[in-house]
């Protein structure tokens, strides 16, 4: 091997890389918040909704979980505009991520709700708590605690799979890398640096989630 690594061009483009990193973080956070909203609604519909709604939600979950994210992205970016919808790559990417996360998170949240023993809800009823009070004071904390590891690792997976949105040039970190690559031809160096940024991001995300856990959900329980 007689190849000289030249990281100069890559590091010279640091403002672009920073911007791409920020877009990836922003896309992931938006998708987490919106996807979680979708998932909570779907989990509620799946446990308490009427039959046709339950069927529709199940179909949505199975469809998303058994097709690749890339194909879902193509569907949102190429197929829906053919029906007359006009949107930017950025919005299409965000929508695909929200829809994708929503399906996975629904199953996780449903498992959390089901992990609460029936007796606790009945105890809440016996204390004459209202429905939302039971949800607020009895269900939500232990349910969140039970699913926290699964949910946060799903978030990190989502952040990593967001690299795929670069194929519709949604200005994320990997898109920036692809553009730099075609300008400087330093593809190996660029992808090494960008892979390192993703690794740092996933470590930072899991540290952040740990902090949030310690601040909000970390209480002693009897076991």
């Amino acid at each position, binding site marked *: *091997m*007689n*190849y000289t690594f030249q990281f100069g061009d890559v590091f010279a483009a640091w403002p672009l890389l920073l911007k791409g990193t920020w877009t990836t973080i922003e896309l992931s956070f938006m998708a987490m918040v919106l996807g979680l909203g979708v998932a909570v609604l779907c989990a509620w519909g799946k446990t308490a909704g009427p039959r046709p709604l339950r069927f529709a939600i199940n179909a949505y979950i*199975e*469809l998303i*979980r*058994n*097709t*690749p*994210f*890339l*194909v*879902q992205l*193509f*569907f949102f970016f*190429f*197929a829906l*505009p*053919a*029906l007359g919808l006009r949107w930017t790559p950025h919005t299409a990417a965000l929508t695909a991520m929200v829809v994708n996360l929503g399906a996975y998170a629904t199953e996780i949240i449903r498992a959390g709700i089901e992990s609460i023993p029936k007796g606790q809800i009945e105890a809440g009823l016996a204390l004459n708590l209202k429905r939302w009070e039971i949800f607020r004071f009895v269900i939500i904390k232990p349910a969140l605690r039970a699913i926290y590891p699964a949910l946060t690792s799903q978030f990190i997976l989502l952040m*990593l*799979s*967001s*690299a*795929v949105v*670069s*194929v519709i040039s949604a200005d994320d970190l*990997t898109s920036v*890398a692809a553009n730099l*690559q075609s300008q400087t031809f330093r*593809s*190996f160096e660029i*992808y*090494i640096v*960008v*892979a390192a940024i*993703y*690794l740092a991001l*996933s*470590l930072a995300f899991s540290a952040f989630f740990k902090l949030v856990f310690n601040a909000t959900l970390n209480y002693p329980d009897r076991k």
Partner: protein
Amino acid sequence: MRTFGFAEFLFILEAAKWTLALSAIAFAGGAVGGLLVALGRVSPVAWLRGVATAFVQVFQGTPLLLQLFLIFFGAPVLGLDINPWVAAGAALVLNSSAFLGEIWRGCIQAIPRGQWEAAEALNLSYVSRMRDVVLPQAWKIAVPPTVGFMVQIIKGTSLAAIIGFTEITRAGQIINNATFQPLIVFGVVAAIYFVLCWPLSLLAARMERRLASALSR
């Protein structure tokens, strides 16, 4: 301009065999690599544990797409001749090794401590302890999540389309470029993936339920 007809459908469907071939390579290679990773993660040797942990951290902490790019664009730099087949195969094998390794590590560690200690007390060698005592028991609980992970592998092969490997997704792109009927083309592509993945998902869920009821007895 072409319209989407039976010939186009057949073109996409035929590409499914390359998706399946790539998935089979990824699974076979990932199984071997995953076993090594899992054994490394529970190894009594500290540096082996360190290497296996670092491997998992890198391959679970970076996007599969970037791993694919690094191999596809990096190999020529190292003086290796590479084509999309080899690049996609290698990236998927490494990635599945990390994920399967972590799944199997969990299964190995779920085997009660007493089993290990009993094997040690019987003066079984490391190989015999693993092969005759720990792994057969871990295998039982490892099957459902492993089948579930096959779905992830099949979906992961779609990324090979980005470096020009003609599997289902790439075939869909080619047809879409010729027909400009993205709705039906990507609908068909999604449907083929669904037909491949859904039975595996159902099987995994069924096995999981049966295992759970067997364990709770």
